[in-house]
């Protein structure tokens, strides 16, 4: 994702400094500002339900960004995402329960756990490709989940581990509004890290590996190193997301980290649009809000009381159906739709962009 030139806007990069700017045009600056103001103002006007939804979106987008870096950018298929989230959540939970470790120890600790697990998950990628890699990460997911379940039963927390709200500088993070800002900041940091990774050496190396491994190696890219790096960074981010999830929910149970969660994260990057960070965010929004959307639609239907029992099943089926629709009809995901719409307006009154132009 080299930054597309803001085509047709009359904006040109005239110095090297321009190349490194995150936000290029005055209009983009204004839009970013408006968005930031909206995000800050949101929890003060919206009801607690919507604040909770937004917080869930932030949490999901951290995991989705991490998976996007690994699968969408570096091209390493992973079906072990729930296992990594579980690892982070359990690291935080276990450290808290066993040693009463504070927030600023458990979070880095879960990042370290994630990084180590990333190496474990990533080692097969040095030998395996595509399908076989996906299968090996899937197998590791079951191992991690087993270990978590084993801890729960051995220590007698068979229903789950309770985690108290974290205390930072003597200040307890408890109210939904505070959580909203904490997780918004976390998601923002994750996004910044991802963007900067993408424009640095490692991001370019990952994209080269994704396109063609042989060519990438011939170009002098250290395959083993960058593959493992992708796994380590992605897993560390995912684990931190898992730990934050544990604190936010105040409760860790292995049941929450089923294979279905992995599929949801994979669906985020598919529905959002492969290989694009914006796609990860859009996908996170879509997949997080989707069940509530279905629930809302179903309660609007006549005979809502009779349907109430089957909301869960409808949700499941609809989710599978939407995922299939995107895979078959819109492999570019939401980003693809967004690009088409944007190009339509950018090019208007013309229909086709010039050959050879960038996106």
């Amino acid at each position, binding site marked *: 994702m080299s930054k597309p030139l803001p085509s047709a806007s009359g904006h040109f990069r005239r110095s090297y400094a321009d190349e490194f700017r995150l936000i290029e045009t005055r209009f983009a600056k204004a839009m970013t500002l408006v968005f930031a103001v909206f995000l800050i103002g949101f929890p003060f006007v919206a009801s607690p339900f919507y604040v909770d939804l937004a917080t869930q979106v932030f949490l999901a987008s951290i995991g989705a960004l991490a998976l996007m870096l690994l699968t969408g950018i570096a091209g390493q298929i992973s079906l072990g995402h729930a296992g990594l989230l579980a690892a982070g959540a359990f690291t935080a939970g276990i450290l808290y329960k066993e040693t009463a470790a504070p927030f600023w120890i458990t979070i880095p600790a879960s990042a370290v756990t994630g990084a180590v697990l990333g190496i474990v998950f990533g080692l097969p990628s040095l030998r395996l490709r595509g399908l*076989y890699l*996906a299968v090996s990460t899937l197998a590791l997911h079951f191992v991690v989940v087993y270990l978590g379940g084993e801890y729960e039963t051995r220590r007698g927390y068979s229903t789950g581990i309770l985690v108290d709200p974290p205390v930072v500088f003597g200040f307890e993070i408890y109210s939904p509004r505070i959580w909203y800002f904490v997780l918004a900041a976390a998601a923002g940091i994750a996004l910044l890290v991802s963007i900067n990774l993408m424009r640095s050496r490692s991001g370019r190396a990952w994209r080269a590996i994704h396109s063609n491994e042989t060519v990438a190696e011939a170009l002098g890219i250290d395959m083993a190193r960058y593959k493992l790096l992708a796994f380590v960074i992605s897993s560390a981010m995912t684990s931190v997301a898992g730990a934050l999830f544990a604190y936010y929910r105040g409760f860790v149970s292995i049941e929450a980290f089923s294979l279905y969660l992995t599929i949801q994260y*994979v669906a985020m990057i598919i529905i959002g649009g492969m290989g694009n960070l914006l796609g990860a965010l859009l996908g996170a929004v879509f997949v997080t809000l989707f069940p509530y959307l279905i629930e809302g639609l179903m309660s609007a239907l006549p005979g809502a009381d009779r349907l109430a029992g089957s909301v869960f099943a409808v949700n499941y089926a609809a*989710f*599978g159906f939407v*995922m*299939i629709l995107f895979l078959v009809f819109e492999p570019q995901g939401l980003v693809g739709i967004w690009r088409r719409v944007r190009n339509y307006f950018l090019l208007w009154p013309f229909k086709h962009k010039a050959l050879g132009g960038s996106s």
Partner: protein
Amino acid sequence: MQFVVNIMVLAAIYALIACGYVLIYRVSRVLNLAHGELMMLGAYLLVATASAFAASPLMAVVFAAVMSLAVGGMVYLFLMRRMTGETVLAAVLTTVALGILIRGLIVLFWSAQQQHPRAMLGWDNPVIVLPGDARISLYSALLIVATVIVYGGLFLFLRFGRWGIRMRAAGQNPLLAAQRGINLHAVFALAWGLSTFTGAIAGMLIALDSGLDSTMTMIGLKAFPAALVGGLDSLVGALIGALIIAGAEVGVIRFIDPLLADVVPFIVLIVMLVIRPWGLFGTREELDRV
């Protein structure tokens, strides 16, 4: 003795399911992660036909099996056909999404409660005492018989059957096969149909033996390591792999920790992927093709 019988029954279950993974992978290089759900759907079809054909239980079983054959073919014709030429990831994820869709629909139609098709058909499940004081239920024994018949039938079909030879040709080189006049779509649809059919037989027999609910998909997923350990494109491999996985699982339950039962197949899978990723009987070059 009981120990050996347990291994044999579990191996038969895994082998019967694993041949579905192998059939589809061998012919079309797609890993069907919805196999567990398709197999469960077969079992639920039996629940549906059991209430419709209350008079003749055997007809119900036959009808459900034929229906699952059709379902498998339709999955290919309406869904997977569109995924030809897409990346491996896209095809695999489509099957994952299909699995979720099927699971949701099943709960929607039949609720999440446990079903007992055997009681609905009015059959009972006597215990057979084997020499050596080992016990086996009738349907577990039938599972072993079914596995033998299915594998024997598949072997003959792929070796001598007209369509079987076409299937092998399509798996070996789709381009040449197509130029030779083989209808690839028909062959792929047949592979999906057969795979769902064998899966449904496994699902029905398991459901007849011990009831039916959505945990059956886990059995389907655990049979996947069996297919991969043996080699994803080898039927003989699937048999051996099923024996290995079943042996490991039953052994661990007996001697170490029953809680490990759900992970053992995957641990064996990881070990296999590290040592010999293409499986015991698989083709080595397969690995670079994916």
